């Protein structure tokens, strides 16, 4: 790793830590800086304050970091292996599947948050496996088949969701479905974070272990094969790993728009490279954006603002700014 890259990475981590620490002090339940120091140095403090800090505030920030890193890295990896700068984690249907799962839970299972999370996770995984199954129908196993299968799955789930929206009770279920599709960290508690961490770690670790093969996948399939890489096998494993990460995250937060597309672009524009180092750097950028966005989502008003609104309004102008600086 070059010295410049090292400095960039170090700076990104530093900024992520700084925004996280600042946002620890911000929230609807009043926790003073004094209280935070007391908690850190293990001095006796009000039990509710302690519970809010460890059970709600900290898990929420950790979840924002996890979601930012996970969605952005998955987006970056997909953009690499699908050789398409517009690829997002949803390209083969994981988010639409999760959305469908959540909708089913809201309408037919009269879902509490836990039911919705499980249904969304299962929905995301099923959608991706169905898409992979569809690619097997085609003789040509290239990436465009995956993209097409993703479009098919995306359209079918979209159709089913529209149908359910039509039959949904407009006052209750429809609103719940719409809000789920805009994402929020409002309901995050420590158990939710703990429950998804294993999937997140397995997925991200797999991606990191396969970093070299992922770079090869960005080349022509034939070139990869001539280098002795089992191209289709690796692509399959990478997709499963990324799906695990994305499905587990959105199952507890709802859909988070734009971050998986924009963070990798910002990452690439800053590093001016396109390799796995950029993928990690993009993950940190995603983490920074989501921590800031969530901090605003919970503090701008007494009611929670859906996170997708903020990721869009923070991410898009930043991307436009970086575009304007590129020649």
């Amino acid at each position, binding site marked *: 790793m070059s010295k410049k890259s090292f400095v960039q990475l170090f700076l990104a981590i530093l900024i992520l830590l700084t925004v996280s620490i600042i946002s620890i002090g911000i*929230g609807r339940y009043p926790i003073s800086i004094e209280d935070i120091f007391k908690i850190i140095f293990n001095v006796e403090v009000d039990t*509710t304050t302690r519970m809010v800090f460890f059970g*709600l505030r900290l898990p929420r920030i950790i979840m924002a970091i996890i979601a930012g890193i996970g969605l952005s890295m998955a987006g970056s990896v997909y953009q690499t292996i699908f050789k398409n700068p517009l690829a997002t984690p949803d390209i083969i249907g994981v988010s639409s599947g999760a959305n469908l799962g959540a909708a089913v839970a*809201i309408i037919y299972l009269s879902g509490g948050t836990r039911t919705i999370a499980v249904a969304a996770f299962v929905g995301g995984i099923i959608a991706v496996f169905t898409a992979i199954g569809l690619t097997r129908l085609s003789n040509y196993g290239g990436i465009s088949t995956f993209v097409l299968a993703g479009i098919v799955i995306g359209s079918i789930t979209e159709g089913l969701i529209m149908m359910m929206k039509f039959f949904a009770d407009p006052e209750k279920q429809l609103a*719940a479905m719409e809000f789920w599709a805009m994402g929020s960290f*409002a309901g995050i508690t420590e158990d939710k974070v703990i429950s998804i961490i294993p999937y997140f770690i397995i997925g991200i670790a797999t991606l990191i272990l396969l970093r070299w093969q992922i770079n090869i996948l960005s080349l022509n399939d034939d070139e990869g094969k001539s280098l002795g890489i089992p191209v289709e096998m690796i692509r399959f494993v990478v997709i499963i790993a990324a799906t695990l990460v994305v499905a587990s995250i959105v199952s507890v937060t709802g859909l988070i728009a734009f971050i998986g597309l924009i963070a990798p672009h910002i990452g690439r524009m800053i590093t001016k490279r396109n390799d796995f180092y950029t993928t990690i750097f993009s993950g940190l950028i995603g983490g920074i954006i989501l921590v800031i966005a969530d901090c605003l989502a919970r503090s701008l008003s007494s*009611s*929670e603002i859906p996170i997708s609104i903020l990721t869009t309004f923070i991410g898009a102008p930043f991307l436009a700014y970086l575009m304007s600086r590129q020649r």
Partner: protein
Amino acid sequence: MRELGGFIMNILKRSILIILAIVMTLSIVGCTTKPEIETPENLEPVEEPENEVVEEPKFEPIVITDHLGREVTIEERPERIVSGYYITSSMLIALGLEDNVVGIEAKANSRPIYSLAAPQLLDLPNVGTAKEFNLEGCIALEPDLVILPIKLKDSVKSLEDLGIKVIAVNPEDMDLLKETIIMIGKATDNEDKANELIAYYDEKISEINKVIDVDNKKKVYLGGNSDFLSTATGKMYQNYMIETAGAINVASEIDDTYWATISYEQLLNYNPDVIIIVPEADYTKEDILNDEKLAPLTAVQNGEIYEMPESFEAWDSPVPSGILGTMWLTSILNEENYSFDTFKEDVADFYNVFYNFSVDKELITK
């Protein structure tokens, strides 16, 4: 002979085919048009003489200004009414007009009040929802009066252009609900019954005012339908209900006009004395009691969590029996001055007088 026989058979077969074709065409035409033409004709002569015999005084034409600011002139007493809104459908029962209703909103079977008070409404054709109004279906019912929510103003215009009388209503709070009741009472020549209903509201509100403890207001949190982290804001009917019952809505500072989502932290910060769960919520009292994140709340520690009954109407919304929701909350907050048993009596009386059915008091829970 055989040839002649074959020839005749041939002609016979062909004519049978032709006759069959004619019969089928006729029956298809008959199927599509007959009921539309015949049902109204069949129904009207049966109903009209009855009504005319009972109600002697002549109907005076009346001009009504609806909630879209439109002036509607009703020249004759409406005999065939379509209601595209559950609040007005229930209102028509309360005004004793259930036999004049010929079409109601979709998903009527999800509202228990119909099967309790006027099960015949469930067999009526539906005219769709506020999202997807079935304009043609509504016209086919040949209504004299259509009542729609103001959301459907495009359909209101279309019906008006066809010469059908339409009233658009927006019963979003207590005052608008009263206005709606008066409007429909006037339009259907039922003003006495409408005034009776409003007098009941006014009487109960003044009784509530005597019962509540103004100096010691409790803090109430109202958990919304999909999640206990969604709540009623200061601009909603539910806020009015809580305030009328002599309490403070902890989320009244939020000025969204729709259910707002809040965080656990915000709920802990509000720290309500009492938590109310709306009817037909997706979660139960136990879910709140078992959520360890909510354990510090005063309401949880004192077990002051109540589920609004869901066997009648959505008492937390401006439906004609919505006043009972306010009375229910008043009783819960001021049990010593207005006991729950008295409240149950009041519910039984209300439905007996206005909806004409006797209530199973076991269903009135808290």
